[in-house]
């Protein structure tokens, strides 16, 4: 009789009595490949034909460079703003009780649910010089619509839910005992907030910031109506892709798309690193 092997064989899948792995795994992988991976591969293929120098050439074109600068720069500021206010919103929603709290909580998800084009024309109408808010701003000498400020407003709109929803569950999970412990040790409320409550939330805040930033950079629908789309001033990178496509400049479109994809992958990587670091340091995400 043959001895059973002592060393467990490295296998692709752990044995299980549950049926259906082959079918569901095969189906999922096939669909994923056809819908997501192959089309993305087409972009990579196209970009590789351009080569690094080809992409660089497009990226340094003054109009493209300024569009990228607008997209990334404004998105950075917008994500920062969304993170600060998102934190306040998340804190208020989890820590305080006030009438209408549940409704306010539901409202936070509005940008997820509202089609971007609808948000876009509404923001444009609101912040246009004759709009409800735009009129007030105009009196102060501030032009919102058709300037980078308009882009900023749209990006804050689109990024806010990410900032709120990444921090909120962690605020819920804060153990009140650590705040009590801090108080019994003589720390005032502000000291407790700064030294005990906030530091463990930083990874979540950074994650929310990165998500809002990535979303802002890629956003199209809610921005183009309010932006005014002036080349070199308020033209965003995604719009430039659309323009290049309409001019049948596939290479140019691919180059910009590749740069944007690269940045969003770097952002994703950053998020994963933040979470890995947080897990190591605090034992949780």
């Amino acid at each position, binding site marked *: 009789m043959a001895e059973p092997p002592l060393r467990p064989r490295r296998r692709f899948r752990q044995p299980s009595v549950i049926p259906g792995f082959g079918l569901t795994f095969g189906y999922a992988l096939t669909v994923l490949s056809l819908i997501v991976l192959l089309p993305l591969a087409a972009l990579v293929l196209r970009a590789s034909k351009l080569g690094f120098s080809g992409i660089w050439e497009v990226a340094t074109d003054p109009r493209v460079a300024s569009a990228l600068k607008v997209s990334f720069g404004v998105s950075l500021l917008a994500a920062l703003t969304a993170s600060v206010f998102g934190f306040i919103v998340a804190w208020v929603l989890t820590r305080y009780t006030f009438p209408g709290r549940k409704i306010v909580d539901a409202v936070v998800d509005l940008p997820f649910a*509202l*089609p971007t084009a609808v948000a876009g024309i509404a923001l444009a109408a609101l912040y246009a010089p004759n709009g409800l808010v735009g009129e007030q701003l105009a009196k102060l000498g501030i032009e919102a619509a058709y300037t980078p400020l308009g882009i900023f407003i749209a990006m804050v709109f689109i990024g806010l839910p990410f900032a709120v929803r990444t921090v909120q569950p962690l605020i819920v999970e804060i153990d009140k005992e650590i705040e009590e412990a801090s108080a019994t040790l003589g720390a005032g409320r502000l000291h407790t907030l700064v030294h005990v409550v906030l530091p463990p939330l930083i990874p979540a805040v950074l994650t929310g910031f990165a998500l809002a930033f990535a979303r802002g950079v890629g956003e199209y629908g809610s921005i183009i109506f309010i932006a005014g789309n002036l080349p070199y001033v308020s033209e965003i990178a*995604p719009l430039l892709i659309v323009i290049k496509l309409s001019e049948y400049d596939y290479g140019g479109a691919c180059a910009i798309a590749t740069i944007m994809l690269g940045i969003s992958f770097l952002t994703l990587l950053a998020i994963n690193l933040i979470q890995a670091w947080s897990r190591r340091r605090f034992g949780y995400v």
Partner: protein
Amino acid sequence: MSSASAVVPPIKSPPIQSDRAASVVTEGRIVRWLLIGVAIVFLALFLVLPLVTVFVQAFAKGWAAYLAAFTEADARSAVRLTLITAAIAVPFNLVFGVAAAWAIAKFEFRGKNLLVTLIDLPFSVSPVVSGLIYVLVFGAQGLLGPWLIAQDVQIIFAIPGIVLATIFVTFPFVARQLIPLMQEQGTAEEEAALTLGASGWHAFRTVTLPNIRWGLLYSVLLCNARAMGEFGAVSVVSGHIRGLTNTLPLHVEILYNEYNFVAAFAVASLLAGLALVTLVVKSLLEWRYADDIAAGARRH
């Protein structure tokens, strides 16, 4: 500790103000209301006001003008196309999501994390880029372009392209909701069903499906909202042919760019209404079935 307590004269103890009770782990009353105020004003300004604007502008010239926007043939065909697109994209992603979640949540295999990351990928791709990649595959200058032209099949600037782009942008919704949920539920119940003689399909239908139904409904709801409202990706592949390849969001854009504001906002109000219904149902689901929707933290 030299002074004995007896020194303190016994007094009739007064009732103590109850406001102190919660003060150890929260901020002062003024700070509290200040922060609540900041949050509400901010949300009102950035989120609620735009929503209200849609309806205000839509009814700016009264009911007749509002309704006129929908009597137009182009508007009707846009509604039809949006419904068709969602009717294909949502069930497609539903089936994919359930299959993927079954394989990922109920089994242990190598490369699982990579698979999950790849499924999430469309969320981190700009909508415009999502459209672009399909143009690169199916467009006239694309990889399969010449072959498709030879077969006389049109995908880009036609309905199939719109459906494909919509499937892409809504791809992760169902799967990413179900994977953590089903992982948390484990395999014990399915194993119990199997030991009792149920077939795999029977176990799925009678054990797994009831356990995930609220999470499933929740994710389908969000998937549908995005499918009907997608703009950037669809805009790239549609070609904007009025009456043929215009979905509702694209129709809104065209009307707006033609300075037909009332009609643009009227059509937009339809989509905003959809968003509101989605939010309300979503919130109701969260309040009633929070534990059956998501594993651990809420995610989108």
